[in-house]
């Protein structure tokens, strides 16, 4: 793995690209990874997968992230969409999308959030209306990461007119080039372009676009969450900064820096154990939803705290030009998003509190 990844994470290039690298797209890298058999590793061979074990896949993921590899283009397809389609999708749609995903050529995005549905996801208002055999989609998604690179979006919409809350929702697979789909960029506070608005205006879909059971969208979405929440991306987003700190401490020896490296290493080690333990449980067919939520909450807090701790310990300009400063400045600005994306800190703690029997 390490030798495969190395040529793609050029040390000479901008060191900031290694931070939060699961949001850094590089289609050439994704294709190379697909050709090496490292996307869709657990999927059936009939769909371009490699029928490897979930734990083999886990090791590959953490190696990619620890190296700061630009996995953003295919990340969502590999983590979620491919598996979702294989599990719930109709045959035609599986054939259409999954092999390209495994090849690192087809990318996807997740259409959950809307202007009035953030943490309160059950208030989604985008709709699917029956139209002959097929469907027509209307509405808007918001904060859609990767929509400008994606070939396909999985959208959660209201398929039963007049339904309330988490009833009457369904998931649909929508090609991004379907007539009526528009993507508008949203620039984040770092000046970067990762997320978008996605508009659906009378988007016509065939019957096969319904993913899983009509009206079962809520259950399907929540069942994915353990998978989405406990992966190594939930604690490794700032590892590029820890690596810079190690080299800085080597050149400027001080007990403060050595101790900080020690503390950050202890936390990384613990989170890796926790995340891997959830992965093993998922591999055994269990659903460790509560542990997965804890991993995300602890992991996000850790990767979010690291830039501040390092800024306090090192006198360095976070605007650069030193690599440590550049990565620090970049992560300081990105880190607020770590405890928002994929479910906010408060929502996660609410889930944990329910697990403790408090609500």
């Amino acid at each position, binding site marked *: 793995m390490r030798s495969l990844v190395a040529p793609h994470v050029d040390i000479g290039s901008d060191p900031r690209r290694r931070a939060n690298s699961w949001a850094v797209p590089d289609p050439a890298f994704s294709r190379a990874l697909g050709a090496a058999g490292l996307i869709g590793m657990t999927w059936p061979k009939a769909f371009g997968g490699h029928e490897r074990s979930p734990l083999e896949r886990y090791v590959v993921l953490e190696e990619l992230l620890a*190296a700061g590899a630009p996995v953003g283009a295919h990340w969502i397809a590999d983590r979620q969409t491919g598996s979702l389609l294989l599990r719930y999708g109709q045959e035609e749609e599986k054939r259409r999308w999954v092999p390209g995903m495994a090849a690192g050529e087809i990318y996807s995005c997740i259409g959950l959030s809307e202007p009035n549905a953030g943490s309160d996801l059950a208030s989604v208002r985008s709709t699917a209306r029956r139209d002959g055999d097929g469907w027509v989609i209307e509405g808007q998604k918001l904060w859609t990461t990767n929509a400008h690179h994606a070939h396909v979006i999985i959208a959660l919409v209201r398929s039963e007119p007049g339904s309330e809350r988490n009833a009457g929702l369904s998931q649909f697979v929508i090609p991004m080039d379907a007539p009526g789909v528009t993507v508008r960029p949203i620039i984040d506070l770092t000046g970067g372009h990762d997320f978008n608005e996605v508009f659906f205006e009378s988007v016509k879909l065939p019957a096969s676009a319904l993913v899983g059971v009509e009206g079962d969208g809520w259950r399907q979405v929540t069942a994915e969450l353990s998978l989405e929440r406990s992966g190594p991306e939930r604690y490794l987003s700032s590892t590029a900064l820890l690596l810079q700190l190690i080299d800085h401490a080597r050149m400027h020896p001080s007990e403060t820096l050595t101790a900080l490296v020690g503390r950050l290493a202890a936390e990384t080690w*613990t989170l*890796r154990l926790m995340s891997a333990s959830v992965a093993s449980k998922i591999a055994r067919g269990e659903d460790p939803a509560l542990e997965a939520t*804890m991993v995300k909450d602890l992991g996000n807090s850790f990767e979010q705290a690291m830039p501040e701790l390092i800024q306090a310990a090192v006198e360095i300009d976070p605007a650069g030009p030193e690599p440590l400063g550049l990565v620090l400045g970049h992560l300081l600005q990105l880190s607020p998003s770590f405890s928002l994306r994929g479910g906010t800190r408060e929502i996660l703690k*609410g889930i944990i509190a329910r697990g403790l*029997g*408090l609500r």
Partner: protein
Amino acid sequence: MSDQQRMLEEMAGGLFADLGAAATLDSDWGTIKEVALDGLLLGEAQGGFGGSWEDALIVFRLAGYHALALPVAEAAIAAALAGRAAGRGTVAAVAEGSLDQSRFDGVLAGVPWGRGADFVVAPCSKGGAIVLETAEATVVEGANIAGEPRDRLIVTDASMSRIDGDPFALMALARVAQMAGALDAALALAVGYVNERQQFGRSLAKFQAVQQALASFACEAAATNCAAMGAAQAMARGSAPFEIAAAKLRANRATGIGTAIAHQVHGAIGFTEDYTLHPLTRRLWGWRSEFGGDRYWSTVLGGPIVAAGSARFWPDLTALTR
């Protein structure tokens, strides 16, 4: 967990729940001896139970959970290192003095239940460890902030032998296991209390601020238990220099967050002598310093990582478990 480990857990759990924080060496050590828990880590050939560090984690964690006021971990580690089934041993944090081939003159400090110990295992300044016969030592009794005996032993011309092993690190691991248990127990108390206590016409558990605080505590307790398990498994495989340092740091961190939340949600009742929270939290505060605090372990852990450079960080971390 194996069937045998489940039996061990049940036996130790029941026993420690009965003995708890009110146990005393004089009246209750016999009970521990009867079930031979002091021989937990000693080889079977030497008259011990031949347990692994995973077995020890189960027992030491339960000792912490029940705030057991007996030196089970100390005795088990001393017996295993010295290879002795007879008598009660304990482990000193520090030994200062002069030694020749077989005699030692000096002071042993930070000795848990040093009073009446037949022998003491201590870290040796020249590497490895020493075993000292201490039945004749002069004891200056002391205690940690939780009231657990932490004595000074002054020994003159004591018989001594050199052994391999790292008693300081093993005791740090034992403390991590105890801290994992004590954090879980304090969390259980807090959850139970907020479900019962009513204010503003409903139980405290219904307030989101309380829920969110306890969720943070639960994450800390889970992280400490996971770290304890990781370090114990590494010891069971042979040695755990990285893991013990990392686990002690993690347990120390969880202690600050966990004890603060446990006390906050309890209000004033948790601050009383009668209520059963302080036997856990005061131990946690004491144990945070014992056998290496943050400053010690963070430099022990960080030093080699910095020296090796960033390219080795991830390969070395993953090599620990593969």
